[in-house]
C-alpha cells in the first residue's frame, strides 16, 4: 500500500513548491538562507489568508444555511445575497472598542484569543492545498493537526478563567472536560483509515485512494467494513471538538450567555469565531482525506488522465475537490446545528466515555483483523 513519500512538486532540496520556485528566481545578492525564510513568510501569509477567507465564507454560509432552514433568507442587503456581509462585519468588529473587563487577568485575557487562533493557523501548516502545494510536508501530518487543534483548548480555558465572569468559567470548564473526553474517540477512530493506508501523511493517504470514479475511497465497505462506523464516530467527535451543536456546551447561549467568550468583544471575539470555522473546515478536510478520498474524485481522475499528474490543471482539480468536500462537511455540521437541541454536560460525558471510546476501540480491533486476515486476499485491495 505504501507509495513513495516524496511530494510531487517537491524539489531536490526537500523544500516545498514555494521554496523550489524561489530558489530558481533568486537574484545573486540574496543569501541562500533567505530563501526558506521568505518561503515561510509566504506560507504564513497564505495560511492566515486561508483561515480568514474560510472563516468569512463559513460565516456567510452559516447565516444563509440557518436562514433557509428557518424559512427566511439570511443576509440579503450587503452585496449579492449578502456575500459582502462578513466583510462589513469584519470592519465593524475591527472598529469596536477593545474592552477588558474590570478585574480580568489582563495578560491572559489578551493572550487567549491569540493562542486560540495561532493554534489553528499552525494546524493549517500541515494541511496540503493540493498534492504539489503545501507549506510543510509533515510525515506525521495528521498527528500534527490533531495536536495543534487541541491546543485551542488551552486558549479557551485561559479565556474563561481570565474573564472574571462565572459564566465564562463554566464555559471553559465544560470545554476542557468535553475536549478531553472526545480527543480519545477522535484519535482512535482515525486509526482505522491510518491502518488501511499505512501512513500518517495526508497526501500519501489521498494517493492511496486514487482509482476509477472514487471506488477506492476508504468509506466504501469493500475497502474495510469498519470504516463507516469509524467515520460516524469521527464525525460525532469532531462536532464535540469544534464545539458545534449539539455539543456547543462551552458557549451554550441559552445557558451560559455566551460561555467562555461572554466578556469578549470586537476583534478578539472574532478570533474565537475564526478559530471555530477554521477548525470546522480543517476537521472536515481531515475527514475528507481519511474517509472520502482526499484529492481523489472523478474530476481529479479525469484531469490526471487528460493532463497528467504534474499539470496545473490536475493540481487545481485536486484543490477544488478538497475544498468542495471540506465544505460539504461544514455544511453538514451547520445543518445539524440548526436542527438539533443541545445535550447536557453529563450526557456529553456519558456519550464520550461510555459509548464512543469503546466503540472506536472495537472498530480498530475489527478493522485490524480485517486488514491482517482478509485484506491480503481481496483482489481489489491489491490491484
Amino acid at each position, binding site marked *: 500500500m505504501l507509495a513513495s513519500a516524496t511530494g510531487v512538486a517537491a524539489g531536490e532540496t526537500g523544500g516545498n513548491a514555494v521554496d523550489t520556485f524561489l530558489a530558481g528566481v533568486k537574484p545573486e545578492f540574496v543569501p541562500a538562507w533567505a530563501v526558506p525564510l521568505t518561503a515561510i513568510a509566504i506560507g504564513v501569509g497564505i495560511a492566515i489568508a486561508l483561515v480568514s477567507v474560510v472563516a468569512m465564507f463559513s460565516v456567510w454560509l452559516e447565516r444563509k444555511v440557518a436562514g433557509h432552514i428557518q424559512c427566511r433568507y439570511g443576509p440579503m442587503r450587503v452585496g449579492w445575497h449578502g456575500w459582502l456581509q462578513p466583510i462589513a462585519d469584519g470592519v465593524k468588529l475591527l472598529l469596536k472598542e477593545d474592552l477588558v473587563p474590570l478585574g480580568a487577568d489582563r495578560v491572559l485575557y489578551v493572550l487567549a484569543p491569540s493562542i486560540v487562533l495561532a493554534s489553528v493557523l499552525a494546524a493549517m501548516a500541515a494541511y496540503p492545498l493540493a498534492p504539489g502545494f503545501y507549506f510543510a510536508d509533515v510525515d506525521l501530518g495528521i498527528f500534527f493537526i490533531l495536536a495543534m487543534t487541541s491546543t485551542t483548548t488551552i486558549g479557551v480555558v485561559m479565556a474563561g478563567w481570565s474573564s472574571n465572569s462565572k459564566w465564562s468559567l463554566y464555559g471553559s470548564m465544560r470545554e476542557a472536560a468535553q475536549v478531553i473526553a472526545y480527543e480519545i474517540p477522535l484519535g482512535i477512530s482515525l486509526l482505522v483509515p491510518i491502518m488501511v493506508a499505512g501512513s500518517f501523511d495526508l497526501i500519501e493517504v489521498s494517493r492511496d485512494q486514487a482509482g476509477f470514479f472514487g471506488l477506492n475511497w476508504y468509506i466504501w465497505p469493500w475497502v474495510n467494513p469498519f470504516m463507516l462506523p469509524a467515520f460516524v464516530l469521527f464525525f460525532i467527535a469532531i462536532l464535540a471538538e469544534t464545539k458545534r451543536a449539539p455539543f456547543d456546551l462551552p458557549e451554550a447561549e441559552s445557558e451560559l450567555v455566551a460561555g467562555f467568550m461572554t466578556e469578549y468583544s470586537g476583534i478578539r471575539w472574532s478570533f474565537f469565531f475564526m478559530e471555530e470555522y477554521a477548525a470546522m473546515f480543517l476537521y472536515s478536510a481531515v475527514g475528507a482525506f481519511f474517509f472520502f478520498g482526499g484529492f481523489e474524485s472523478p474530476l481529479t481522475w479525469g484531469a490526471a488522465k487528460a493532463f497528467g499528474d504534474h499539470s496545473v490543471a490536475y493540481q487545481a482539480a485536486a484543490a477544488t475537490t478538497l475544498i468542495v468536500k471540506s465544505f460539504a462537511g461544514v455544511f453538514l455540521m451547520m445543518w445539524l446545528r440548526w436542527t438539533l*437541541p443541545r445535550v447536557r454536560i453529563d450526557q456529553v460525558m456519558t456519550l464520550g466515555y461510555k459509548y464512543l471510546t469503546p466503540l472506536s476501540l472495537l472498530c480498530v480491533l475489527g478493522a485490524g483483523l480485517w486488514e491482517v486476515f482478509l485484506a491480503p486476499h481481496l483482489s481489489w485491495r491489491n490491484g
Partner: protein
Amino acid sequence: MSTPLHTEPDRAARQGEREFLLDVRTQDMEVNMGPQHPATHGVMRILVRADGEVCTGAQPHLGYLHRCAEKIGENVEWLQYLPYTDRYDYLAAMNNNLGYSMAVEKLMGIEIPRRALMIRTICAELNRIGSHLIAFGTYGLDIGAFTPFLYMFREREWMMALFEKICGARLTYSYIRIGGVFNDAPPGWLSEVERFCDVFEEKWQEYVDLLMVNHIFVQRTANIGVIPPAMALDFGLTGPMLRGSGIDFDLRRDMPYELYAEIWKAGAFQIPLGKGERGQLGDCWDRSYVRVMEMIESIKIVRWCLGAIEPGPVIADIPKTLRVPNGEAYVGIENPRGELGHYVVSDGGKVAIRCRVRGPSFTNLAVLEELMPGALIADAIAIIGSTDIVVGETDR
C-alpha cells in the same frame, strides 16, 4: 432559601439522582442568572447557588418589571383599565381582556350577545395557541433548538395577522370589551380562521416530530423538574403546570364560563393531561406535552365556534362612562398559563376601589425554588423554561 413544604425524603431522593456528581464537594458559587440572561424570559433574576454544575439552591427575585398595574386599576375608569390588562401577560392579551371584562360584567349583570361570546371564545383560543407556540418554541430555544422556535413564530405570525385584521393591534389588543367585543369580525375573517386551523393542524405535526419526540429533547426534559401531584396541589399550581402533573383540573370545564359549558357538553374538546409517558409523572416533558396537546384542543374549540356562529350584535348596550353597582366580584378564567383571576370591588362610582389580579405565572413561579436543588445548570434552564412564566405578569 425557604423551608421546603413537602417531605424531606422526597427532596433527598431527587438529589440522589445526581449523587454521582455530588461526591466531590467544593466551595459553592453564587451565580446571578439574570436580570439580563437569555433564559429568564424577560427581566427576572434568579440567584443560583451552584456546586460546580449542580445547583444547590435558587431564589427568584422579582419586580424588575413592576408597573403598579393593580394600583392603576384603582385610579382609572373601568373601561380605561382595559389596555393595562393587555400588558401583564402580553402573550395572551385577549385572555386578560376577557378576564377583566368578565369580572366587571359579573358586577354589572350585563348579558353578552351570543355572537360576541363566540368571537371572544375564538379570539381567546387563538391567543392560547399563540401563547403556547411561544412557550413551546422558547422552551426549545432554552434546550438549544433554534429552528423549531422560528417555525412556531411563522404560525404565530399568521395568528397575529388575524388579530390585526379584527382589531388593528398585533400584541396588545384591548379587543374584548366590557359588554362584548369592540367590533364585528371583518368579512372573510371567519373563513380565514378556518384556513388557519387547517394549516395549523398540519404544521403542528411538524413541531411534534421535530422537537416533542426528538431524542435529545426527551433526554433533556424527561425526569427533570419532577412535580409530583401532591406537590403541585401544595403550591397551588394551575394550568399546564398542574395538568402536567396529572391533575385533571381546567377552569373551562370545572368552573365553566362563557360558552365553555356548552362546548364541553358538545364534546368538542378534551383536557390533555401529563401521563409520565417518557419519564416520571410531572416532569418537564409532561408539561410541554400538555401545552402541545392543548394547541390542538384549542383548534377544536375554534372549529366548534366557527360552525355555530350566527350573525347578530357583538356588544351589549352599555354607556360610555360605566358606573358599576356597589359590590365585589371575582372571576377566574383559564389563561394559557393557568388561572387568571380578577377581583374587583366597586363602591358604585366610575373607578374601582380595589382591582386585584391573581396571576398564574406568579403563583407557578413559587415552585421553582423547590425544583432547583440537585439540578444541573442546564436542567435549571429547562425547569425555568417549563414553568412558562411571563415576567410582565409576575411583576405586574
